[in-house]
Structures are given as C-alpha cells and as structure tokens.
C-alpha cells in the first residue's frame, strides 16, 4: 500500500515542481498541500513512521526543487528574494560584486535539508529533529526560509536560542575554563545566568556591552549585590587590569592590543601609549576576594569601584606609569583609542578635571563605555563576529583584529551592516536574520571548478561563494546528541548544565599563563575521534534501552527496516540514504542476525562518526 501511495504522490509533486519553475506554486500546490494534510493526519495516527515516509517524499522532491531554484538564482540580472529586508539585499549585492570582481561563480544553493540543518546548528546549536525537519520540508511557501527563521528566533525556541548564545558569550568573555573551579574569582554560573537572561529577552547589544564594561557587584548568584555581568572583569584585573584592557578592546572594538602593553605593535598602528591610556580607564576598579566554604577554602570575586589615587598618590590628577622597552617610564591618563581624552571631555570643568580619580567626579568605566558604544569600531566588531559565526569566516581573520594592517574583505558591507544594526537599536536578532536569509548563507558547500580558488582554508580572502565547511563545536555535538536521542528528558535544567559542563571540560586545556589562554582538543584530532567512537556520550546516544530513540524506532511495528534506516539518516544528516548506503545498512541487519535494534545501533554509530555529521556543511 505504501508503495502505491509513494508513486502517486511523487508524480503529483513532480507536477508541482514544474509549476513552480514556470510561474510559482499554482495548481500543483493544491495536490501537494493535500498530501501534506493527509500525512499530518497520519502523523497523529501512525506517529514517527509516517513521518519517515513524508520526509522521504518531500526530501526527494525538494532537493531537486532547490537545485532548479538555484539555477534560476544564479541567472544574471535576476532579482533575489530579500524577504522584505533591504539589509538582505545589501548583503547579496555586496557579495555578488565580490564574485564578479574575482571572477567567481558561486556554488549552487544548498538543499533544503542542508539549509535547515545549518540554520538550526547556527541559531540554536543543534541539528533539527526529524519532526522539525519534516515541518520545514513540507512548507512550500516561497518565504519558507523566513518562516523558519522567524520560528527559531521567536518564542518557541527562546530557551534553546538563549542557551546557544549564552554558551558562545560565556566562552568569549571568560573562556572555556573560566570559573570551572570553586577557587576562582569568576563564578561561571553567575556569568551564565546574566547572559541567559540577556539573550532570553534579546537585550540590545549596546546595553549588554555597557553592563559588562561597567559592572560592579558580586559574581555569585544569591548575594544581595549579585551582578553576573561582573564576572567578565573579575579575573582580568590583576596587574592594574592588563587583561581587562586587552579583552575589552578585543571583544568590543575588534582591536588586538595585547602586544602593545610592552611595545608598539610590530604589524599594526596601535601604539604602546594607546594601550596604557585605555588601561587608565580601569584603574578605579578592584576585585575583592570573598572566601567561603566550611574552611573558607573556596572563593569568588566582587568587583568594586573606588577612588583612584594615581600611581603618584594624587587623586586630583590620577595618573599611571608604564615602561618603554628602553626602560624609561612614561605617564598616561585616560584617553580613548580615537584620541578623545577625558581631560578634553571635561575641559569646561577645569583643565585636569577629567583626569581626577574621584568616582564622584568622573566614573572612568562609565566614560569608557560611552566612548566604546559611540565608536564605529563597536559596530564593526559585532557584525564581524556574527558574520564569522554564520559564514565560517569573518571579513577579517582573526575576527577580533580589524584595522588598516588587517583590512576587511568587504569593508563597505561591514560598515553598512554596522550602521544598519545601530539603526535597529542593536537588535542582534535582526542582524542574525539578515545574515541567515542572505544568498551566501544559502549556498551549497560543494566546491566547483569555478570557485575552487575561493578557499580561505588555504589563506585566500573569503569571498563566500560557497558555504565553508566547519566543524561542529563540542557544545553543538552535545546538544545535537541529546536532542536526537532524547537522552536528557529526565534531568532538570541545572543537572543538564552541570553534566554538559563536565563533559565539555575534558576537551579544554588552559595554558596557565597570565593571559588565561587555552586550547581545545575538540578540533578534529584523534582525542575527538576517540570520544565519538567509544565515549560515554555516544555510547549513551547509541543505547538501545527502553525510552531511547533507537528503541522507539526499532520497536515501531508499523514501519519496515528501510524506513527505520531512513529515519536515522534524516536524524543525523538531514538527508536520506543513497541506494549503496541502504545496501550496506541492510548487510548490517544480516550481520546482526536480524536483530534490528543492534543493527540500528551500528548504523547510528556510523552516522554519528562521519565527517558529514560532525561538519556543518
């Protein structure tokens, strides 16, 4: 019976497709839509099995539909869908201009399954479930991508979205190892709590930045003066806040200044005095260590503001000193990177007023936040960072070192997107929406003879004529496996977070230097391969115990083995198996003596260990 339905519906859909390329969805749409309704009915009555069938039908159809769509897109002069956002058009035009200038022809559009997979991975940090995938594949409106993005950025996925961006920003602000121990000024949970709230409510990015730069209070949740934002600076105030200076300029201004603390930068225009003048803004800041525990053996930090007496002891003109390479000492007062000095800002209140160390007169971090937020560098830094998140490479490499010594690949676009973001009141979700709806984000990762020179992995400047492969991060793998296998449904949010942090910590190595730098072994090397082959997480995900995904699929009496296998392919790779893959999978069934559960374990294991699974493509 199933076979009969398949043939009939396929031919209906084929009709629909030709309608689409000729003049959009018309008569063909009705029959297709009827099919979806029918399947949705079946979904209720038959459950997952019917969804597999639906997925099969639609993926086959839509993969081809997307290809034909791509051809029409690539046709010159054809107006691309900007989904009603001029900013999307801005991106498309600027990127296309780059292709023309470099004589590149972009890859075809990605298949619907591929696009859906990447947008889930990038926005909410996991692969889509088969059910989610099917909903998308079944949507045949022209703005289906917009509708999915709306959903992922909307209420339905608020938690997953906030969790994703909390992780990203936690790693950015305090590193993967920051606050992992109880003897640390940083309280990781405090940082996460603050960020989680910020991303739940889509806090404007300028406000977020200001709060992080100016935060005071306890790092630890539960204290009366708890301020999770204080964790950003809590472990960076040693030696007069060298790290606070370097990280603040790196993260919020896209300026890599850390080398200039000792000398003028060998490759860029940043000068040593600029570093120390920026550092002078952090001198009213201190971190108190708060001991706790039965034997006071643990501690955390409290960031406080206090008057700064200057290194010469005079708060009326509170200066700092730094050493030149030749051993000479020089003096510095708060001056922003563009040359604006606090003395200048407060000039009307007296010559030295702006350099005063009294908080009541001048709050230096507040002033710094104002200057940073007003700068063009602030806009560029965040646009570059988010662009790199979604497209795999930023307009510069590294993303947080932008300047004349390291010019962006698409300077106008970077500026325009920066200005557009500012015009939204720094609504990051808007920026994300523009990027994921743009043409470059929609391209296949397959290299063609006409864009093989566009390969940033070998040092070329990225032109975004295809979607660059990149590896899932450890967090993405973790979330994906949990979702795909429903392995964590019995745990509370706190338990879940703790388990995740514990699992992730195995991959991080801190170098133990004053810069708190660290490395990860979740980088495509052997330890990662071992984790995926034999590790506990994958063992759990490939488990066949009652309640697990594999158990459910294996025990569903209404579907045959072919459909069970297809379900696993959709869950892991967002695509259906090829004929050859199906044949090998069937051999596995034979090898397991007809033990379906065991064979599915083998197939699922193989899928999770592939390049196609671990790479965002």
């Amino acid at each position: 019976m199933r076979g009969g339905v398949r043939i009939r519906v396929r031919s209906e859909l084929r009709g629909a497709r030709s309608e689409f390329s000729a003049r959009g969805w018309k008569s063909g749409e009705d029959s297709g839509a009827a099919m979806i309704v029918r399947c949705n009915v079946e979904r209720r009555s038959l459950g997952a099995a019917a969804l597999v069938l639906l997925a099969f039908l639609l993926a086959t159809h839509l993969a081809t539909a997307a290809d034909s769509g791509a051809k029409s897109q690539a046709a010159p002069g054809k107006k691309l869908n900007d989904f009603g956002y001029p900013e999307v058009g801005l991106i498309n035009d600027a990127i296309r201009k780059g292709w023309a200038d470099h004589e590149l022809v972009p890859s075809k559009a990605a298949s619907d399954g591929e696009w859906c997979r990447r947008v889930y991975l990038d926005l909410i940090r996991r692969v889509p479930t088969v059910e989610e995938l099917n909903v998308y594949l079944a949507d045949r409106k022209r703005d289906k991508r917009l509708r999915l993005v709306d959903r992922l950025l909307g209420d339905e996925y608020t938690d997953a979205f906030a969790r994703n961006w909390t992780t990203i920003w936690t790693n950015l602000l305090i590193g993967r190892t920051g606050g992992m121990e109880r003897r640390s000024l940083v309280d990781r949970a405090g940082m996460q709590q603050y960020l989680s709230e910020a991303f739940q409510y889509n806090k404007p990015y300028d406000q977020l930045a200001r709060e992080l730069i100016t935060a005071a209070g306890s790092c630890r949740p539960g204290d009366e003066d708890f301020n999770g934002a204080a964790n950003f600076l809590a472990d960076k105030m040693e030696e007069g806040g060298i790290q606070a200076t370097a990280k603040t300029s790196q993260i919020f201004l896209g300026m890599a200044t850390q080398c200039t603390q000792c000398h003028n930068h060998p490759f860029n225009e940043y000068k040593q005095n600029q570093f120390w003048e920026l550092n002078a803004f952090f001198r009213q800041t201190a971190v108190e260590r708060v001991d706790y525990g039965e034997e006071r053996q643990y501690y955390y930090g409290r960031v406080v503001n206090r008057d700064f007496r200057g290194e010469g002891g005079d708060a009326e003109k509170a200066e700092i000193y730094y050493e030149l390479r030749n051993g000479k000492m020089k003096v510095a007062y708060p001056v922003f990177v563009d040359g604006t000095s606090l003395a200048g800002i407060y000039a009307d209140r007296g010559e030295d007023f702006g350099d005063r160390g009294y908080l009541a007169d001048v709050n230096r971090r507040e002033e710094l936040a104002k200057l940073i937020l007003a700068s063009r560098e602030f806009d560029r830094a965040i646009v570059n960072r988010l662009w790199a998140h979604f497209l795999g490479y930023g307009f510069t490499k590294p993303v947080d070192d932008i300047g004349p010594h390291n010019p962006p690949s698409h300077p106008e676009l970077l500026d325009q997107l920066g200005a557009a973001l500012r015009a939204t009141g720094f609504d990051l979700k808007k920026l994300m929406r523009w990027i994921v709806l743009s043409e470059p984000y929609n391209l296949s990762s397959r290299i063609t003879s006409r864009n093989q020179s566009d390969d940033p992995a070998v040092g070329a400047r990225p032109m975004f004529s295809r979607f660059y492969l990149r590896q899932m991060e450890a967090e993405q793998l973790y979330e994906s496996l949990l979702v795909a296998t429903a392995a964590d449904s019995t745990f509370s949010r706190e338990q879940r977070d703790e388990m995740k942090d514990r699992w992730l910590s195995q991959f991080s190595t801190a170098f133990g230097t004053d810069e708190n730098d660290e490395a990860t072994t979740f980088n495509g090397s052997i330890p990662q391969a071992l984790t995926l082959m034999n590790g506990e997480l994958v063992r759990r995900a490939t488990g066949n115990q009652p309640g697990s995904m594999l158990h459910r699929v294996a025990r569903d009496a209404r579907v045959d083995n072919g459909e069970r296998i297809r379900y696993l392919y959709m869950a892991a790779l967002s695509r259906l198996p090829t004929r050859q893959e199906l044949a090998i999978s069937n051999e596995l069934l034979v090898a397991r003596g007809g033990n379906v559960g065991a064979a599915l374990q083998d197939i699922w294991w193989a899928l999770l260990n592939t390049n196609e699974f671990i790479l965002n493509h």
Partner: protein
Amino acid sequence: MTCCNIPAGMSRRHFMRHLAGASVFAMPAFALTRTLRAHAESLSRNHKSAILLWLGGGPPSIDMWDMKPGAPTAGQFKPISTTGDFQICELMPQLAQQMKHLSIVRSMSTREADHDRGRYYMHTGFVPSPNVEHPSYGAVIAHEMENKVPELEIPPFVSVGGASEGPGFLGMAYAPFQVDANGRIRDAQMSVPWQRMYDRMKLLSALETRFIEERRGTAAEEHAKVLAKTQALLSSEQMKAFQVRSEPADMLERYGDNNFGRGCLMARRLVEVGVPFVEVNSGGWDLHQGCFTSLETKLPELDKAFSALVEDLQQRGLLESTVVLCMGEFGRTPRINGNAGRDHFARAWSVVLGGAAIQGGRAIGKTNADGTGVETGPYSSEDLMSTVCHALGISLQTTYTAKNGRPMKIANGGRVIEELFA
C-alpha cells in the same frame, strides 16, 4: 588494554588487516600514505626522535642557564659547576652531572614576548600570520620521520600534559596527540567487540568516501585521515607505551613522582617504540610574582626529571638518536619587578639542547654583564629549529607547499648553529 577485544587465535596484525581491507584505509585519501609506507619497508629503520621539554609561561633563563652573579639583575641563587664547560643554577645539581651531554645556547634573541605569539613562534619558526597556519616542531618532525617508522601505530606526535601547537597546513593527521601525564587515554577502549566494530567501519567508510567525493573541502578529507589513525591506535599493542605507571617504582622515583617527571618517563617509553616527537609540558613558569620562591620548588623538579631523562636515554643507547630540547616561549626580564618577579623578555635568553649529533657540554653565545642583551650573533627560533632538524638528519632543503600554493622552507630557512656540531 584494547587488545583484549581481539579474540583468541586472531593476531593483532591479522585484525588490522581486516580493518584495513574495507575501512577508510582503502580510500583514495590514503593512497599517498600507503605508498609511502610501502616504500618505507625497504628504507632504513634507523629513525631519530626528538623530545621537547616545554616550560610554558617563559622560564627565567637568567636564573637557570645564564646566571649573572654580582650583577644588579642577579637573582638569589648561586651558580655551580657542571660536567660541561659552563655553570648552571645550584638548584639543579643532578642536571649539572649530565651537562656533558647537553649544551646551552645563550644568545637566543627573539621578538615575541606575548604568550600566544611566543608559543607559536618558538614552536614553528614563523610569526603568526592571518593567512597561513604553520606546522609546529612536532608536526614537522612527525611528518619527516613517519615513513621511517612504518611499524608505528600510535600517533607520531604526542604532547604530554599540555596542548603544544597545531599541525598547520600539514593537516590534523599530524596534530599533537594530547595525553595526561598518567598516560590515561580517554575512550581508547573499543565500545563493541572487534567484529562488530569492523562492520560499523565498513558503513562509516562508505559514508566518509561519499562525502569526500562531493568535494566539500579539506576538512572532510582530514576527518577521514584522522579516523584511520584512530583505528590503527585502537588495536595497537604500542598503546602500552603510555602506561607509565607500569614502570618499576625506582624508575618512577628517579624521574620524580609528579606530572612532569612521569611525562619525561613516558617520553622515553614513547621514543623507545618509535614515536618521532614527544613534547612534555611543565606549566607555571609565568613568574611575574615571587619568582624565586617558585623556583625553589620548580627547579628541583626540573632537575630531577630532566637529568633522569638524559641519563636514562644515554644508558639505553637512545641519546645518540634522540634530540632533547628544553625551552619556553621566551625568557624573563633581567630586571626584578616590585613583586619579586620577572616579566616577559625575548631579547636575550637561553635554551638547552643535546642528543643525536649535537655536541654536549658547550655554552654557545654570550649575553652582556647584566643579561639585558646578547653580545654575540643572535639566534632565532628558525635557527634553533634548523639545528634540531639538522641533528635529526632532516634535510634543510625540504620545502613544503603551503595550502595557498606558496613554497615554504622547513624551519623557515633558519641557519644551523654550527658550534653545536663542530
């Protein structure tokens, strides 16, 4: 050990052949490696190795290898005589006895005084570049030595107790295999019996191949190569080399009962089975504060492990084929700061090396009276790396083609420090 998974009557090699028959080994991506290996069978088995003792954070070489007694910049320790023609710090008396095997280069002069950049530069011979990632010592030496050790089934580049630096354009197959100093390898136990693993690999191999053939870029191919290396390791007897705690108690005691000591001991075990490059990490040398108090515990630890390693290698006849190199990302300021610490300093500092063709007992180069500058020709990371390669018999004419198509000389075209060989 994983070998327990192999059923009786089935030798490990037999099992490996099974895996190789239908696994990712058979894929085009491995054609090159296989050809190399086939050739290697007829080549000399006389390979060489290198061990890098990495003092992360930047050791104060002015307190260790190039002391300035009487100068205003001198620390609180005294120099002692050694079996070489120079003095070192009194806190390293056992190493002093081994110095006839080791030499000091006292005229290192570099420009990178930031941890990240310094670590990169000292590991690669190149300053960081936004356009290309350079291969580190371990990757280069693993790459050059690999076909001389065709029997090696464990990774050719091992980093004990730290991250080292990456393989750059040589690819993830030459990435450091990071282990802790107790030699516990996470997840090295096959989760299913070998027959079933074999079946799984077959499907996995088909999936890998298909994706690679779709031309998605190097990351997909890299993945398959790493997978092949991982497979080889899973069934290898050589994994026992990591089990440092199986050494007799007196041997463990001789190296020192701490992570660095065990790391050095493991390095010797790994070199014995043919691993071309091992890095052993000792952290906590970023001595901005309380430099001398820290050295009172750090130097005896280094003394014990380093001297045991050299002596042990020598006694086993391995020192003539193994270069040992000890350094960090830079030295530390002659000036002692207000916190009794020393800050980052790259302009004039020392490294220690010996073994293989390198002559021991010599102090090469000279710094000025207070250690703030070098008085003889300065040596760079490139020079040092060239020297190590030369000592290992790696041709300095070796040129790689970086992924961007640019030719790139091994060790960035540095000069061999000739005084170490004459």
